[in-house]
């Protein structure tokens, strides 16, 4: 028993001895991941939320039913979401270059990521808003709410826990998407794990990165679920 414990301690010691020299690089990679994911979360909130709301409002049977707008936006969202992500990154290079002036680096990598973020989150927003009882919309109109007031003071308030959970789910998938950004020099933890861990046969580095990612994802999910629960007053 004692011997086994010693073995574990010895193993951990060796493990950390492999990892420690790369501390600086690891932190740098984590920072890059945060930049890419942060920009895409911002894009999801600033553009995905309105696009999702538009999808909801233009749907059949909803307040601003509009088949043309719905079909176009819906189709666009589907197309973006059906692209294999790596191909989207490559296909978007000219557009990325137009927007940020270069197709390489962390900020450039955030562009295709943001596009996917908008598409993903808008779909989740649409789904959350569909769960709001139609009666709430009726009550809002009876009180003389304008469209903007209806959206902000009724729809978003009633759907806020769903919107939070959606953003949590999206954030986690953005992290996952961001790991392939090495292809355009975006860096990030995924890129680090591949270049240092996989390609240089330093399994310890790869395992360490995966553990970091697991902790990251777990805490985001925990925080998101907690916030959604606290925001939800629909049941006693």
């Amino acid at each position: 028993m004692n011997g086994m414990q010693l073995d574990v301690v010895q193993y951990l010691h060796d493990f950390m001895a492999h990892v420690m020299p790369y501390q600086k690089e690891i932190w740098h990679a984590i920072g890059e991941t945060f930049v890419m994911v942060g920009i895409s979360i911002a894009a999801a909130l600033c553009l995905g939320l309105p696009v999702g709301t538009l999808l909801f409002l233009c749907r059949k049977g909803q307040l601003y039913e509009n088949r043309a707008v719905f079909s176009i936006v819906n189709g666009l969202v589907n197309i973006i979401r059906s692209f294999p992500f790596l191909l989207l990154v490559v296909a978007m290079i000219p557009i990325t270059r137009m927007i940020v002036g270069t197709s390489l680096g962390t900020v450039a990598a955030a562009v295709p990521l943001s596009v996917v973020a908008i598409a993903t989150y808008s779909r989740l927003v649409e789904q959350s808003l569909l769960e709001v009882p139609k009666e709430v919309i009726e009550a809002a109109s009876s009180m003389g709410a304008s469209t903007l007031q209806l959206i902000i003071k009724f729809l978003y308030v009633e759907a806020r826990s769903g919107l939070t959970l959606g953003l949590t789910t999206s954030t986690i998938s953005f992290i996952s998407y961001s790991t392939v950004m090495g292809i355009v020099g975006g860096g990030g933890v995924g890129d680090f794990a591949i270049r240092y861990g996989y390609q240089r046969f330093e399994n310890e580095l790869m395992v360490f990165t995966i553990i970091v990612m697991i902790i990251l994802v777990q805490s985001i999910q925990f925080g998101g679920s907690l916030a959604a629960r606290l925001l939800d007053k629909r049941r006693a």
Partner: protein
Amino acid sequence: MNTCRLICGMILYVAQAITLAGRKAGRAFFMLARRPRKGGILLISLHNVSKSFVTGGTRHQAVEPVSLHIEEGSVHGIIGTSGAGKSTLLRMINVLERPDSGQVMVNGQDLTLLGERQLREARRAIGMIFQQFQLVSNRTVLGNVAMPLELARMPKAERMKRAAEVLKYVGLEDKAKHYPSQLSGGQKQRVAIARALANYPKVLLCDEPTSSLDPRTTADILSVLQDINLQLGVTIVIVSHEMDVVNRICDHISVMESGRLVTTYPVVKEGDPT
């Protein structure tokens, strides 16, 4: 003989005339005594409004062309079985359902002719409560009551004061910080009533307000509505499928049947000297 008959006839004729005139005068007197506040001004006037819905490719006439006139200060009941079109008729009063044809006059304005912005303004003077209360469940009771004032952009301090005031009126000031899910059905409907009253409406539209409540709570809510009518002078239109409910508080009742308004009659209240 002849003179005798003539005199008798004359006496009878005069007597009849006196009784008739007396009855007329008496009726007029009682009418006045019963509703002294009512000036007979038409607050709501629907002219030949109709509405049809298309479901699954077939057109269904929910409301045939209907005319309805409601005086200021009255409590008007609309009764009928489910599917008779009474809720649709009620929803046309604040153009929540836009009528296919006809005119909706409320407070001297034809609501069907108003633009979006003006219609919103007009709706703010028309309170509405529903069968399922339709409160915002992620907002506190006070937040719900303050909502119409917030929509009308009343300054915060002022609207909180007003919301607390109406909440007190319905007897729920101690529940201000609660969320709707923590309240009973009757309490939720009181909150909904407070919300509808917050912005000083002239009209309160009630769509089956007691249909999901038990008999005792129903009586409670009806007495609140009656107080609102008597104390605040708010005109009330109430849709229900329960005769008992409309009989209890309405002064006029309209009966609807398969989209048609069959009849409208005044209610003779118990205890009224008629």
